[in-house]
């Protein structure tokens, strides 16, 4: 089919096709993303000391760029994407290896590569590429076949290889999130529940052993999480200050640009990891819940796309992307509210940072492509 299909894809009535696809794009969702980016602009404007520089203006520019990327991605045929999934995955792993060898060190970990003006964090990109590869693998598998343990060996490796590479950076938080994203796709693909129970059991046994091998700063994060007051001036300081900021924000907040915690720099990394605290301090519970609600709508949309899609590849892709986006939000907000250990995870669309913005918008581009091509014909499942 490939050659014929390709020619048709490339030549037949291209202009009309593009227009029809553009018509298919759910513009209300695009509007939702714009609203979230606007929230980010407001927060970064405040984090910049009441000025568009140095954060907010760049944020807007990056979002505009991401928007173009997302919309162009939406027009790419989902089958074409499925075909390049493996290649993309391999490239992602190669980047992870590269970052270990040549990457820049930030806070004791090798995490990003400089590409011209852009800093790329391959681990962020990898989560999306992993979802792509898993979806491509499971898309052809029947219910019986998914039940076969041998069939699960390769996808398990697909998850473990990037996890291991990210752990080596070392970035425990992102490695765990990568694992959870992979698990979500496994789950949606119909992997039997007892297998998950088995893995969870193993993890529970392995955790104390793994703890022994953690870096000091990672251990500090876990211990200060368990008892933040134990070291109020050290690692626990961030969490306490974040909680004071949230608490003092109250129901209605202190008002735009009037957050004392943020503006007197009690709040660390307020433009990245703790941007949500900044929002919650200045706009209160009302503002925080509004932002959380908007983010939840975006996650919900992913499931909507998944349920309306008529091919397994698209469904799994949508669920994987939705889970990835959700985990970003959950880990970040849980972190700033002192619910889980601190780990440099940004709040997508709102935090300052080019790499996260790029990968988030790339993910949504794939999601929109699933939506636009939800009725595309894939080959049947095989046993």
């Amino acid at each position, binding site marked *: 089919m490939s050659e014929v299909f390709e020619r048709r894809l490339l030549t037949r009535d291209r202009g009309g096709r593009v227009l029809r696809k553009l018509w298919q794009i759910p513009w209300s969702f695009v509007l939702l993303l714009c609203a979230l980016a606007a929230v980010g602009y407001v927060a970064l404007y405040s984090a910049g000391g009441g000025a568009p520089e140095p954060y907010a203006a760049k944020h807007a520019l990056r979002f505009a760029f991401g928007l173009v990327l997302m919309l162009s991605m939406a027009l790419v045929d989902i089958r074409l994407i499925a075909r390049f999934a493996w290649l993309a995955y391999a490239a992602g792993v190669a980047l992870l290896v590269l970052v270990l060898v040549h990457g820049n060190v930030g806070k004791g970990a090798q995490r990003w590569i400089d590409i011209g003006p852009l800093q790329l964090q391959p681990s962020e990109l990898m989560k999306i590429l992993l979802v792509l590869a898993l979806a491509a693998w499971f898309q052809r598998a029947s*219910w019986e076949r998914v039940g076969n343990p041998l069939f699960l060996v390769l996808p398990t490796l697909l998850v473990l290889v990037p996890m291991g590479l990210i752990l080596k950076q070392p970035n425990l938080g992102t490695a765990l999130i990568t694992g959870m994203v992979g698990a979500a796709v496994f789950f949606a693909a119909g992997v039997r529940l007892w297998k998950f129970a088995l893995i969870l059991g193993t993890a529970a046994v392995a955790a104390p052993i793994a703890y022994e091998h953690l870096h000091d700063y990672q251990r500090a994060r876990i211990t200060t999480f368990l008892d933040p007051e134990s070291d109020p001036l050290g690692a626990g300081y961030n969490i306490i200050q974040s909680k004071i900021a949230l608490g003092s924000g109250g129901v209605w907040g202190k008002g735009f640009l009037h957050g004392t915690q943020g503006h007197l720099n009690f709040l660390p990394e307020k433009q990245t990891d703790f941007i949500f605290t900044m929002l919650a301090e200045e706009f209160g519970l009302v503002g925080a819940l509004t932002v959380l609600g908007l983010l*939840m709508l975006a996650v919900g949309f992913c499931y909507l796309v998944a349920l309306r899609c008529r091919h397994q590849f698209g469904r799994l892709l949508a669920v994987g992307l939705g889970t990835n986006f959700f985990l970003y939000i959950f880990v970040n907000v849980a972190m700033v509210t002192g619910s889980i250990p601190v780990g440099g995870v940004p709040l997508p669309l709102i935090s300052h940072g080019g790499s996260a913005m790029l990968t988030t918008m790339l993910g949504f581009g794939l999601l929109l492509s699933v939506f636009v091509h939800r009725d595309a014909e894939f080959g*049947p499942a095989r046993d």
Partner: protein
Amino acid sequence: MSVRREEERRRSVFTRRALMLAAGQAALFGFLGSRLYRLQVVEGERYAMLAEENRISARLIPPPRGRVLDRNGAVVAGNQLNWRALLVAEQTQDVGATLETFSRIVPLTEQEVARIEREVRRRRRFVPVSVREFLSWEEMARIEVNAPDLPGILIDVGTTRHYPEAEHLAHIVGYVAPPAERDMDGDPLLELPGIRVGRAGIEKHHDQVLRGRAGAVQLEVNAVGRVIRELDRREGVPGQDVQISVDAGLQKAIRERIEEGTSVVVLDARSGEVLAMASQPSFDPNLFNAGISAQQWREWTRNRATPLINKATNGLYAPGSTFKMIVGLAALEARVATPGDRVFCPGYMDLGDTRFHCWQRRGHGNLDLRGALKHSCDVYFYEMAKRVGIDRIAAMANRFGLGVDLEIELPGTKRGLVPTRAWRQAQGKPWNLGDTVVHGIGQGFYQITPLQLATMAARLATGRAVQPHLTRSIGGRPVRGGRAEDWPLLGIPERDLRLVREGMWAVVNEEGGTARSSRLPAQFGVMAGKTGSVQVRRVSREQRERGFRVESMPREWRPHALFVAFAPYDNPLYACSVVVEHGMSGAIAAGPLARDALIETFTRLRTAPALPGSRMAEAPGAPRP
């Protein structure tokens, strides 16, 4: 058929599980919501209540800036109390009206008012802005009496930088000034009123160390700004003291001895510690405290004697004859000459149709390296340069610290230049043999600083890659060892070095040496040195033939006078360089200054070898009669 059933089964499983995932994630969202509710409404109730009437105010506590001490522990940069008036914008209804009332009590200029209003706009309304610093007792009394009419104005005491030695150490210690926009590196400390950052010298190089870290208090404050209680306190870290190797008394004595356009560097030859580094003229760093006037700044920057520039590190000169040791060593190392090789000096050397003159028009006759150094014969070194070639000379110069970055702790220090063939070719010009010859006597494209010359003298004296430095200790902890063994050997045979040192000994101590009048009084031991003078303007053949005399030139065209030295000769402790701009003759203008600087150094540092009687004539190692 089975395909369709299969697809339906897969789909139903997926739908079920996707809904489970969605439900799980929605529940976690709910958890986050409840967590926020608990923090912001239930558990944070006291904060919520405070938000109604009171507020939590966070204030930074500035740490005292570390001091700069000289090698004897004397303070050369310290802190003084500074009474000042601050304005807290949120405590007044009308900033303009408050300032107007204020200026009726203590006059403010229009520029000051504009600056205050700009800062009020730029900062948070609860951050105090400095209105006027350095208040006198009388002004403070008047402000206090009128306090009810001055809402938002408060008086507090800060500290200001004070330099007891004023202009004597300005080039080394540097100065501080209020931070500019580009200094804002995210340190919240820099937002405080009255804070200063290092702008030059040690103050700039060690700014982070001296600055310390801000502490902070979180205060519960009521609506009028009165503190109700302290909620949390985070202690700051006071800035650490930095001790420098300079002897303030020595520095002062040397500076008082020298005139405009002169720079003197004295190093501990073994450790590389800078003992004195004087450059005339200088400036008073205390004037930067209150922010200097545009007029003062213009005066300094337009002054042709450049008081703001440290000539010892940023003045660039050709080394002249003080460079001849380098050429000699390069020739010995390249084996193009042996120590005993003699060159006949008829008073000139011809190369093609160009004639290069020796300073001694009558010629020196037959000379070996030792004699050539002693008499500073130009022809000998023309010949050696021709044999060695410029690139090997440049490499040797770099090993002795010339034209390289010595990493002294003074920001903006010049690296200088030692030309090479490649350097000239990069400019698109060829390198001619004539260029090599001229560069053999230290003239030409060289750009060398007095600090580099002193370093060269120290390295000649010790044979080690001594690195000049200023920092002795930070916060009481020594930073670098003070022993010669801390520095790697230069890799030059001791035999070669000894020969060159002998030449330098002869310059000062032997009949006919060029700097015989500069030798040390007997009780201080023996000094070895080398004179130099460099042309600022080329003297044409025509002028030469008309019996030209440099004394008849306008001052700014006269040659610079240079001198490098180390002492004592048999056990070098100190190295020294002197550059006198337009001083004409190294032997007359620079040599005596080096002698006096070394005498002063011996006297003050009390490490002069206490040897009785004159050792000048029969100094050990003073070889041939």
